[in-house]
């Protein structure tokens, strides 16, 4: 018994300790960070990262200080487990800006709006939740996300987006125009909006002047499972822009920039609600190694003393502020990894704004790390009848040697490439025409296809989805995939505005599941900083292909008028002849014709003659059958009628002139 009591006490004590720890951790948190990275083609990548988190409401309650209420309500109402919404303008240039780093894998998005969400509801309610969520987000972000509600615009991917629960829905709106009206509600979710902190850099003209602009909202919640380990809701908001610094430096040198020259503003202090507020400048691995080479050369020539990790002596560039710390990515044994310089904006204020400046000292050229295959998608064929979608993938190995997980063994090495392609129903894809070419040679597709899932489209009901995992030999140089399709006809009501522009096929998603884009920073303390932990997260390398524009047959929209006119004519002719046929009595007509000579007078003259006869008091007699005279008189009457009508018309004409 005593032993049992001791156990109980111990257990209680332990529980109280853990509970006290939990209570300490039960806090909303908000952090902000900005990552800047010079790009090889004289542009600069700016990546804002905001993270707000709220503890689970069972223990914390439903009232928040920092976390946006609207998002919390959204999560609770629609039982969202995970959701990502992105608004993108412009295209990510995979060739120049790279496709093998965490930022491009997570933040390079297709143009327009992309939304995927996973729900924690029974299978039969998922579609309803999706529709409601689309409507709610549409209102929240001033965008036409509600068009994703229609079953013809979203799909249910099975394995391409991580979860295979079947409760995930995916939809894109490639034509959605993204502008400041979408950014403002997004900023409203931040505790300091754009009034203080890093978000105050977001000067609308300069952020929208860029070459790429993508605002993203990622939401993860485990509210529904009531276990102790649940972390609540984590909201991650990122804005990725690619800007071109305006400088007058000479062409060989990379352009110098500062925060104020990029954004037209500078940071004056952090958002006081954020627990960390850092600016990072990242130099890519290839750039670092180029710098190292340059340093070796200069050391050899000038015999300068190496100061090691310093930033002042860097032969390539010069930063205006001393970094708080320098974080080196632990690269592999041959090469150094990329370098992150961390700056804190906490000690800046209105009078001493934080305006980071980067000056280049020596001309340098480098290339960003590329995804193992570079994909592009295009249409084949012309005309309004049929065509083909082609996805061509080219190996980037000649340009830079990507060290994949597999290591190129040439014989036993396989490259697994996942393709997710969603096609609207009016593009009727024949999936049996799937052809695969490897290095120009047509392949029997079953050999290289590891897994395929096709759900063909249903007219006016659902989109067609193809999920495919290709297994390509690592030595492959080019791979091409073609799918033939017929172009369908839409009902006249179903054409969108500006129908003559053509119709969009959303971007295909190319997934390199074997490759993970993450930075391996060894210090564990760095995991505390959300942006750094995000960079270390293992995410598969993903790239999106171009949006395609399919010209479909478009009716002349003034056609309804013509159709009405022609149908009315046809109806008139039809009913006229039917009525004529029904009304006619042949025998009577013949009788009438036989008596044609007898009666020629019109009812009016008959009446007049009857009247005059009555007036005169004489009995009425039918007029004399005078065939010739009657005919000639009727002719004159006709002429007179025509003349009368012509006269009226002429008078009318004259009067109105």
């Amino acid at each position: 018994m005593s032993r049992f009591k001791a156990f109980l006490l111990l257990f209680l004590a332990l529980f109280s300790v853990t509970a006290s720890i939990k209570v300490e951790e039960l806090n909303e948190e908000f952090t902000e960070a900005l990552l800047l990275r010079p790009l090889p083609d004289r542009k600069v990548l700016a990546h804002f990262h905001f993270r707000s988190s709220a503890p689970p409401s069972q223990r914390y309650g439903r009232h928040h200080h920092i976390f946006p209420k609207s998002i919390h309500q959204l999560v609770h109402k629609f039982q969202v487990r995970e959701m990502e919404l992105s608004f993108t303008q412009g295209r990510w240039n995979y060739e120049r800006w790279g496709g093998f780093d965490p930022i491009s894998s997570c933040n390079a998005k297709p143009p327009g709006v992309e939304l995927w969400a996973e729900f924690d509801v029974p299978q039969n309610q998922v579609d309803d939740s999706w529709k409601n969520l689309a409507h709610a987000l549409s209102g929240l972000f001033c965008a036409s996300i509600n068009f994703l509600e229609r079953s013809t615009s979203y799909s249910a991917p099975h394995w391409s987006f991580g979860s295979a629960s079947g409760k995930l829905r995916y939809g894109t709106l490639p034509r959605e125009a993204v502008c400041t009206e979408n950014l403002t509600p997004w900023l409203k979710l931040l505790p300091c909006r754009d009034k203080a902190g890093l978000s105050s850099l977001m000067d609308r003209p300069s952020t929208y002047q860029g070459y790429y602009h993508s605002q993203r909202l990622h939401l993860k919640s485990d509210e529904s499972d009531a276990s102790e380990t649940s972390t609540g809701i984590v909201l991650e908001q990122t804005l990725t822009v690619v800007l071109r610094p305006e400088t007058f430096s000479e062409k060989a040198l990379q352009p110098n920039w500062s925060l104020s020259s990029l954004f037209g503003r500078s940071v004056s202090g952090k958002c006081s609600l954020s627990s960390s507020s850092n600016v990072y400048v990242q130099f890519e691995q290839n750039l670092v190694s180029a710098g190292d080479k340059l340093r070796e050369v200069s050391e050899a020539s000038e015999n300068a003393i190496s100061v090691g990790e310093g930033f002042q002596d860097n032969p390539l560039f010069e930063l205006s502020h001393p970094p708080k710390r320098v974080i080196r990515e632990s690269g592999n044994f041959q090469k150094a990894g990329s370098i992150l310089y961390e700056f804190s904006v906490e000690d800046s204020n209105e009078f001493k704004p934080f305006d980071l400046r980067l000056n280049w000292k020596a001309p340098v050229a480098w290339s960003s790390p590329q995804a193992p295959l570079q994909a592009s998608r295009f249409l084949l064929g012309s005309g309004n009848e049929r065509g083909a979608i082609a996805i061509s993938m080219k190996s980037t190995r000649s340009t830079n040697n990507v060290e994949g997980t597999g290591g190129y063994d040439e014989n036993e090495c396989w490259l697994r490439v996942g393709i997710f392609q969603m096609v609207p129903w009016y593009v009727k894809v024949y999936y049996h025409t799937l052809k695969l070419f490897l290095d120009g040679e047509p392949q029997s597709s079953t050999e290289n296809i590891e897994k395929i899932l096709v759900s063909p489209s249903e007219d006016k009901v659902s989109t067609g989805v193809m999920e495919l995992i290709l297994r390509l030999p690592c030595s492959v140089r080019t791979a091409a995939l073609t799918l033939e399709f017929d172009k369908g006809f839409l009902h006249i009501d179903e054409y969108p505005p500006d129908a003559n522009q053509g119709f969009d096929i959303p971007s295909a998603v190319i997934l390199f599941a074997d490759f993970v884009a993450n930075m391996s920073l060894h210090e564990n303390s760095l995991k505390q900083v959300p942006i750094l932990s995000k960079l270390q997260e293992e995410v598969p390398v993903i790239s999106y292909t171009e949006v395609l524009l399919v010209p479909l047959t478009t009716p002349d929209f003034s056609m309804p008028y013509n159709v009405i006119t022609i149908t009315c004519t046809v109806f008139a002719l039809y009913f006229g002849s039917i009525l004529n046929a029904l009304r006619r009595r042949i025998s009577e007509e013949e009788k009438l014709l036989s008596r044609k000579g007898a009666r020629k007078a019109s009812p009016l003259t008959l009446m007049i003659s009857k009247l005059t006869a009555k007036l005169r008091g004489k009995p009425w007699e039918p007029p004399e059958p005078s065939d010739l005279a009657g005919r000639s008189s009727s002719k004159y009457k006709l002429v007179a009628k025509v003349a009368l009508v012509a006269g009226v018309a002429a008078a009318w004409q004259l009067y109105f002139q």
Partner: protein
Amino acid sequence: MAEVSAVVKPKPRPIIRIGLFLISHSLFVSIVCCIAGVLALLLLPVLAKNTYISENALMPGSASAMLSSDDASDGHVFLNKIMSISSMSKNSGIEIPELIAKHITESGGEVNYHKFQPLSDSFHPLQFFVGPDAGIVQDNYSSTSYGVNTVGIVRAPRGDGKEAIIIVTPYNSVKPTTSEALSLGVAYSVFTLLSRVSWLAKDIIWVAADSRHGEHAAVAAWLRDYYTLSSGDLEHEVTSVKREGVSNGFRRAGTMAAALVIKVADSSTGFEKDGLKIYAEASNGQMPNLDLINIDNYLAVHGQGLQVRVEKIWSLLDSWWLYSLGELQELIGKVAKSLNPGWKFGIPASDYVEGCATLASSLYNQALGVPTGPHGAFRDYQVDAITLEFSPRFSSSQRVLFLLHVGRLVEGVIRSVNNLLEKFHQSFFLYLMTSPSRFVSVGIYMIAFALLIAPLPLAAAALFSDASKSKSPGESIPTSPAWNWLYAAKTVLIVHLWGAIVTIIPYLLHQSPDSSPLTSLSMWIASSAILLFFTRAASGSLPFSRASQLQTSEWTLLKAVTVATAFIGLCLMSVINYATAEIGALLLVPMCLMAVPLRADLKAKTMKAVVRGACNLLLVFVGFPPAAFLLSKVALAGFDRVRLDDFWNWTESLREWNSATYIYICMVHLPCWVLCIHILLHRR
């Protein structure tokens, strides 16, 4: 009662009465309709409307041109570099593509080389129905000579990359002329500007097409590879052309919105302004959307002060009869105006003559079905394209100014097309130009054609009713008159089948190499004639065997069926290529309507009969395709410049360009002509 009803017949329905009336007066109606048809054609320049920009989104000239004189002088420097390369003695044809590629990369564009071989001669006359197939092209570069197109792409900074605008500059990569270098300079200065601007919504593709194997071939090869899975997509590297990091991989940029082919004429204009000549006709008389021509014309005239022209037949300008016709219509217009000031028709006689010359050229170029420039290749893929041929005022000096003007024009056009949200669809696709700013739309020009062919069914009906009425009493075999026409139809069918065989003969002749055009032509004619003779001999229903049985009504029935087939043929052709059908109708309709056996005329020996016989002979002579072609050449170019083998070359070119006109001539016109001769030589 019965007697009465027998006397008074019930009246037929009015529509039938009108039909019967027309058929009974078919001669008069035919003459009136034919004359009206020709008159309507001659009146088209008067009826032409001023062009207007139909699509509001184009907004030409609403933004001021951004192309500065710096860009123009950059273009001039580039031009000089090309000229210095071309003046070098050793030139393998890769230096200039490399130079262009280097400059494109420097200005921030993406670049690739497109290696191609000229297409082999293949005949797809019905390509305009089917369209190019969407398969993959496997070509083998067996031959050593291939062309290298240099393709540069500017990606629109904030665009979604769904659409692209194409600039094409054909040049000879081995030995470019000054004018070709000028066109490259224009394209380069525009391209560098566009790589900097922020307003771009569509990607820009600059194709410096290597015209060593012909301008059209280079552009067509590039387009074919653009729309198929080409070797550039499938092969990773073709080491022979890869230089300086410029890959061979084919680059694309979405659906094409419009294409501009920029050329500079060798000769300078005699005018005091720089000139611009617009070529628009693509294969089989297809035209680009009129709006594309309109914005060019608008920007060139109002923006850059260029003298804009479209092609015209110069020899028509001096023709006295056209001028007197013009004066006549001017006079009528004046009289009408004096009667009612609201009636405004009639244009100055000189304008009329000019309009006629342009219209004739427009009609001829459309009828020919051969594209008038590299833009024709785009139309095969439903892309609107035109060729802009600039002619500088001075031959060498003030090139920078010329580059500035032309560059600004091209920039303006691209900006207009860039504004376009939808594809070109607002304005006309079926039209004839009578001047750069006047056009005749389909609704008006169809009237002339409809009037011309309207008599054909009437005449056929009249002839048929004549034949069924006038049964000769001494008929030995009692056949139903209703089915008599089947014999005639059989004859007509056989002759048309013969026409189909005649169509194919040149391919067989083409197999034997190195034969001169004249021998080929004579062989073609001879083999056709022999074939015709054999078919006549072989088929029992033809006059040689059945001559004794032929009745008077036989030739009328034959003529009726001939006229009916001519009508069907012309109607079909008008759907495919209006201009061919119009010109064909001008020749075919009088010939078919007039045809009467010569023997009957000779027997009659009246003045009317002799004139009719002479007319028939004349029409049949003119109706023979080679004769018609040579006569029109004589009329336009003069007697001394015409050679007999021109006709062979002409048909050869029609064949090579897959023109439907060739099919029309061989399968509609020629059989009808043979049948007319058959009728003329008919024995009673």
